[in-house]
């Protein structure tokens, strides 16, 4: 590892490091395996990019503006780079990054579909971007109309009656939904303390349950990979506030007994929460409301093609049935008789779940996507997502173990454990790493937890049959190559397998913490 100019202990200011190599913009081979220097190594004291507009404002000094005891003598050390070097640095970094625009990204449960460029352009319109969130409704009718229309469309897709667009991500949506559940129970004079969650659930579910002040009760999946009414009945009690389910579940299977489960939970005084992570499988086919759900969160960054941005931002709107609408976070947009839009506060709102109105530009992208697809297009999305997954499964059967071999929905879970087509004992981790060499992103691995050595694969509807076939071929080839080849992978990536144990043992979370070379 080279770290030129690595600091002596106790010398944290990057700009104080010497010698800084400065710009080496033109020297990096395309998609090279060389280390990319950090911003701080590219820094040269005194170099700058920023310029500021002419304003005519009097040029008072810092000392005239800030009390001496509050003023810091030197600004915090950032970086000092030329714009040209900054562009080269970020461009080189981008070349060390896999993305949907580059190729298939079959991460199960993440719905890494193609993100239409049209949506990018819509979200960049100055009429959206240059609007302060406190602009009076009278001067932001376009924004309010968009928010109202999107909430309405999400209700139509889910069968719900009202929605909030505030939660900025799926997990925030989960917590919001659970707090609505809590508020509803209180309004009924009850304070049950438990939430049922299947053992195949996403980790955010139990974490959200704890934050909402509930206790998680894990419901085991049956031998078919489903939540059985019997199991739910066994765990129901007056102390159960509700159940959180993903349907199709994280095994990619439709919970066939959902209507019966819903009846049991409702009869026991509980509510049903729908984790919308897998909504991409069912649009236009069925709706959470038809299954008996009361509260739904949607991941617009999955189903509705909002790009994931390397980990975010997303958007996690929450939609509810009519009896829960008064508890939604507020304000929400309402439409007056004259067709104008205004902010309205639900009567018994649980409060705000975002500093403003949610991840608004993500909502713009989702609305452009929904307009593009319409009713026919959204149904087509789900049909082909399910078709691609089943067609992929057919090509993997016989090579990998299929723990629950039934009609798949939008994703499939296979296992390397006792894989019939593998030349030796393969690990899921190694299969994922080897797939990187073959030009694909890895599937989700070791999830759901109920399947050992799981590979959770979600091709999505935007990958062509040719791409799905190539992905299947690559996975079959990896199994045939056997564990020795896979164990050393990846080889074709900008870095080889990263030492994660060392990262945790010797924490280096900032450039200041990088020790001498």
């Amino acid at each position: 590892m080279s770290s030129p100019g690595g600091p002596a202990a106790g010398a944290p200011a990057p700009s104080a490091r010497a010698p800084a190599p400065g710009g080496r913009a033109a020297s990096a081979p395309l998609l090279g395996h060389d280390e990319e220097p950090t911003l701080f190594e590219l820094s040269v004291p005194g170099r700058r990019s920023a310029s500021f507009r002419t304003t005519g404002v009097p040029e008072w000094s810092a000392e005239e503006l800030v009390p001496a005891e509050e003023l810091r003598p030197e600004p915090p050390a950032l970086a000092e780079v030329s714009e040209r070097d900054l562009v080269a640095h970020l461009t080189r970094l981008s070349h060390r990054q896999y993305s949907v625009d580059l190729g298939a990204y079959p991460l199960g449960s993440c719905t890494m579909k193609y993100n239409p460029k049209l949506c990018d352009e819509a979200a960049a319109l100055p009429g959206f971007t240059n609007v302060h969130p406190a602009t009076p409704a009278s001067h932001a009718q376009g924004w309010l109309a968009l928010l109202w229309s999107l909430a309405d469309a999400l209700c139509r897709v889910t069968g719900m009656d009202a929605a909030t667009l505030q939660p900025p991500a799926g997990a925030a949506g989960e917590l919001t939904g659970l707090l609505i559940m809590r508020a509803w129970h209180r309004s009924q004079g009850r304070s049950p303390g438990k939430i049922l969650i299947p053992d195949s659930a996403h980790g955010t579910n139990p974490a959200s349950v704890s934050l909402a002040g509930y206790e998680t009760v894990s419901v085991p999946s049956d031998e078919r990979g489903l939540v059985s009414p019997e199991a739910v009945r066994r765990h129901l009690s007056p102390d159960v506030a509700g159940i959180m389910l993903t349907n199709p579940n994280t095994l990619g299977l439709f919970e066939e007994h959902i209507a019966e489960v819903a009846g049991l939970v409702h009869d026991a005084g509980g509510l049903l929460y729908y984790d919308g992570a897998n909504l991409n499988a069912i649009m236009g086919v069925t709706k959470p409301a038809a299954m008996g759900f009361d509260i739904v969160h949607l991941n617009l960054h999955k189903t509705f093609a909002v790009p994931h941005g390397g980990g975010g931002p997303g958007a996690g709107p929450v939609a509810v049935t009519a009896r829960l609408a008064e508890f939604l976070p507020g304000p929400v947009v309402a439409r007056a008789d004259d067709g104008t839009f205004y902010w309205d506060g639900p009567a018994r709102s649980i409060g705000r779940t975002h500093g403003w109105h949610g991840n608004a530009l993500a909502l713009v992208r989702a609305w452009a996507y929904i307009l593009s697809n319409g009713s026919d297009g959204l149904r087509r999305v789900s049909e082909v997502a399910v078709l691609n997954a089943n067609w992929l499964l057919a090509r993997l059967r016989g090579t990998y173990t299929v723990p629950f071999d039934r009609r798949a929905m939008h994703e499939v879970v296979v296992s390397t454990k006792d894989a019939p087509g593998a030349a030796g004992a393969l690990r899921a981790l190694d299969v994922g790493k080897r797939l990187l060499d073959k030009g694909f992103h890895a599937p989700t691995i070791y999830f759901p937890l109920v399947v050992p050595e799981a590979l959770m694969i979600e091709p999505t509807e935007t990958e062509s049959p040719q791409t799905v076939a190539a992905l299947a071929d690559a996975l079959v080839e990896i199994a045939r190559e056997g564990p020795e080849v896979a164990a050393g992978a990846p080889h074709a990536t900008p870095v080889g397998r990263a030492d994660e144990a060392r990262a945790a043992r010797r924490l280096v979370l900032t450039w200041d913490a990088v020790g001498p070379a």
Partner: protein
Amino acid sequence: MAHFVPHTEEEVARMLADLGLSSTEELFSSVPAALRLAGGLDLPPGLAEADVAAEMARLAGANAGDGLVCFAGGGAYDHDIPAVTRSLAGRSEFVTSYTPYQPEVAQGVLQALFEYQTLVSHLAGLPVANASVYDGATAVVEAVNLAMAATGRRSVWVSEGLNPRWRRVLSTFTAGRAPELVEVPLVGGTTRWGRAGGPGEGGQGVPPAALVVASPNYLGCIDPLGAARAAATEAGALLVVAFDPVSAGLLRTPGQQGADVAVAEGQPFGTPMAFGGPYLGMMAVAQDHVRRVPGRLVGRTVDSAGRAAYVTTLRAREQDIRREKASSNICTNQTLVAITAMVQLAWLGTGGLRELALRCARGTRYLREGILGLPGVEPMAAAPVVREFAVTLPVAPEAVVERMADEGFLAGLPVEAGGRQGLLVAVTEKRTRAEMDAYLVALEKVLS
């Protein structure tokens, strides 16, 4: 209709045949018939790209906000965004990638986040920063959750100077754990911390997990952190500071003044106001709390060939591993906005941040002096301000905002403190003297 699904009808038919099926309906055989929709979705049919673009342009054009000269802040600021920031943050490798679960093909995002963490650490004056949370409001929630986990206490003293919407988010998202949130009043624009045993006079007697203070606060005032630190120490509590990362170019850092956790809204660095999101929750902590930090942390390590490599680390803190024992449920965060801020901070550079802060402070002083010269206008607080200030007006603030919008200005935000209504006004480096002079003329007219 747009065509984002590539399959031809022939391909679909062939794939179905491969599966022994004759229609797409049969793909859904596991969905009970009683649950299937008879008539499809109740939405209009899909539109062609050009039609969608036209509708989006119509909606965007229906926002007069685009044409308003902005003097509103309160957590969202109208800063200039250079072309380089828009261009680099818009690179599709960053835009269309997922959470970096496979570090070998995610070094771009991971290294950018490592550099972001370093920059946030320097702004906050604390050694550890995470890879982002949703926004400033939820950063406060995470800080409070961290403090409750660290101390085992369930009371929190929150300054009245903290953004009121953030306080509402804090009270919403902590409702499940029901901490006692005690509001500590502002007096003259700064927080009146009481003695240990309770804030202000007649305290609550429950020892707090944290004191939460904003500086500059919601009235724009610098709230002395020395007093907050002393009160926190006396109470045995963590000090959580919400700071303004732009003013950080001029002001002493939260870390230098004893903050255990520092949070900020990172929107001012390259992210448009965009009706409130996506924004950026910046969060930094003292070394003691590194294992309690919510969300992702990027660490630097080496690969199998000994080259520098970046990974997400201390993963055992996170929800997908700790599940119901996790102290945060965050998964998706604001990575792209963090990368945007990284680029913007690099473009600004050390000297540029200072100049940015200085220019905001100069504009703020110029406009504040002008407004205070208008009849019937009084300052809401006497304490020094840097980039924002609050005044009381002889006319209701909501009405002033509405009428000023008709004059072409977003005049500010209605604000309330200590039972008094006022207008919160922000000035960024983007505002010219001519715009401010015109604002004063319009405001005088509206107030008269």
